[in-house]
């Protein structure tokens, strides 16, 4: 691929998370966006259009989010790296084609700028209520790589990672942003184009009549071709064989779907990234991701100042979940404290992976705002004073201003 220098805005810029996402996408080689307007994701489309002419990227505003993701999957098969962006209500609409993207094994990136829910919720308020939906929202069995940035810089970096994963594993990748990260403005450093690692699409290069769109390579990932290259291939969302022809048999379900999961499960160690600090001698470990990162870091500092041995695990990849890491830590620490801007989602994963070896205290930021350091510190103290291991999740009852 020829590098378009205008696509990579090398230098230091002050950008919002939404803007940094678009710059990350252009730097990653994305050249197609289909979307339907929604708060708090709108600025992404505006930024894209401001830059699309010089970058040589195409946009279409679709009639809804169902069609937006359908168009993205179609576009991806022309060889263009493609993406869509939305928020909760639109993310719900996209579940249908998240499944199609998985089944057609089509690289693409979906960004969910989370707001409050359910339904219309508060469109201008940050939330983390779609974390489980990303993992389980589409019907049938699937695995989906999901990244969770906590700042504009991470938004830029993770977007490039998302496109790279989508090409490497031939699968949709989701970025779970939120209103806070989307609108927060910060310094973002954009490297030189030649310093950015790009995973190119992996193409089949054989004879025209020998292409099998779902024939797996050693890494479980089949190779792609572009529409118009003369392969005359067929793909279907029905359970299919290597040729992409529908086969309505149990054996084929196993043959087709199991490897779609395994191509990701097999590589979880390579996919999962987290930032682990001070867990060596920790009694308590805070597990957090995305927008709660600010409050969590402050709380950790305050607790350390009080002499409490607190470590932290910030999840950059949320799905696949770092099961092994949590299980390992559970055997060493007294408790986990998990703050989320929802009423308990990722915390149940932490509890699942703890196997009853550590207490799990949940701090809901459902009502008390993103910067609620105080509750996290109190929850750390509560966790510390808890002598016995309790079954299930211990829900921290907020002392601050709950209505």
């Amino acid at each position, binding site marked *: 691929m020829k590098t378009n220098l205008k696509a990579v805005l090398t230098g230091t810029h002050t950008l919002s998370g939404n803007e940094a996402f678009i710059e990350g996408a252009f730097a990653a080689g994305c050249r197609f966006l289909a979307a339907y307007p929604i708060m708090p994701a709108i600025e992404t489309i505006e930024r894209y259009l401001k830059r699309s002419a010089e970058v040589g990227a195409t946009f279409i505003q679709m009639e809804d989010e169902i069609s937006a993701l359908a*168009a993205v999957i179609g576009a991806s098969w022309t060889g263009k790296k493609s993406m869509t962006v939305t928020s909760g209500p639109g993310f719900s609409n996209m579940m249908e084609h998240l499944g199609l993207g998985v089944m057609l094994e089509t690289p693409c990136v979906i960004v969910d700028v989370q707001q409050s829910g359910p339904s219309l919720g508060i469109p201008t308020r940050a939330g983390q209520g779609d974390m489980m939906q990303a993992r389980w929202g589409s019907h049938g069995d699937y695995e989906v790589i999901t990244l969770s940035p906590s700042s504009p810089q991470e938004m830029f970096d993770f977007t490039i990672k998302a496109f790279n994963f989508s090409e490497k594993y031939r699968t949709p990748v989701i970025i779970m942003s939120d209103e806070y990260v989307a609108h927060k403005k910060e310094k973002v450093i954009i490297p030189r184009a030649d310093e950015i690692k790009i995973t190119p699409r992996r193409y089949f290069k054989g004879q025209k009549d020998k292409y099998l769109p779902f024939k797996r390579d050693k890494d479980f990932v089949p190779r792609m071709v572009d529409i118009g290259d003369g392969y005359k291939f067929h793909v279907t969302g029905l359970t299919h064989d290597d040729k992409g022809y529908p086969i309505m048999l149990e054996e084929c379900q196993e043959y087709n779907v199991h490897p779609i999961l395994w191509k990701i499960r097999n590589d979880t160690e390579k996919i999962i990234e987290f930032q682990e600090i001070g867990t060596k001698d920790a009694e308590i470990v805070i597990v957090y991701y995305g927008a709660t990162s600010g409050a969590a870091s402050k709380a950790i500092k305050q607790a350390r100042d009080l002499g409490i041995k607190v470590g932290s695990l910030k999840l950059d990849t949320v799905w696949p979940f770092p099961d092994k890491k949590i299980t390992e830590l559970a055997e060493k620490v007294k408790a986990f404290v998990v703050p989320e801007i929802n009423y308990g989602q990722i915390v149940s994963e932490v509890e699942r992976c703890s196997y009853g070896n550590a207490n799990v205290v949940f701090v809901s930021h459902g009502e008390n705002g993103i910067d609620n350091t105080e509750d996290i510190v109190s929850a750390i103290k509560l966790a510390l004073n808890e002598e016995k291991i309790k079954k299930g999740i211990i829900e921290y009852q907020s002392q601050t201003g709950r209505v």
Partner: protein
Amino acid sequence: MEPLRKTEKDIHPMDDLLRMDRIPHIWCPGCGIGTAVTAFAAGLAKAEIDLTKTCIVSGIGCTGRVAGYVKLDSFHTTHGRAIAFATGIQVANPDLKVIVFSGDGDLISIGGNHFIHAARRNINMLVICVNNFIYAMTGGQVAPTTPLATYATTSPFGCVEPPFNIPYLADSSGAVYVARWTALHVRRLTNSIAEALKKPGFSVIEVISPCAMYYSRINRLGDGLDMMKFYHDNTEIRHGEDTKNLDIGFQTKIIVGKFVDRERPTYMDSYNKWLSGTKKD
């Protein structure tokens, strides 16, 4: 036993255009979809377009299976979303000619919103809609095209909803080419497909087609052949007819022909105009 050698006679003239490794197909005897596919293949050959740069997208249904039998880059997608999927393909690579081949339920009910918006935008694609007045694949339920008073499994007392007139819907939404034929009019349908394939913009060809398995059986209309006889006796060609006048009732006369053929800038024409304007600054 030694397999019989293939002779010149055994090679079907459409071998190049169909996926012969998938034959036999799933359609019932007396079904009109196969005829529509034959006309399509003939239309493709007749149009002499670059087949490498041509692709086909289907939704779900008996008609939705068409993409799986045509030897082009082909996509069998989700129910109702073929047009949206095809829009992405066309806009991402405007050099491609995209055909959407699907059923009346798929395109006009669950996909109705995509249909009118693609027409409004004038996305460069040919939509071939097989209208059998029913949801066939799921066993004969009411479709948005089922004529008033017609029986279906979900209208045991006769359909109480008025149907869409597909050419009128396409016309008023902005399609640049609109035609209707029946599965009996193979030659005219072929010509229409060949013509529409060369036309830039959103083209719609409706193919009225017998569903011998459900529509005819539930309504006691005989088999596929009886339906063809009905078309023979009850269709009238009226090119240029105002699309308002193309309603279809239960076993009423069906007006066929080419109704709309006009010019309008496509989505990509307008998009590129905007783009070149931006680049000059």
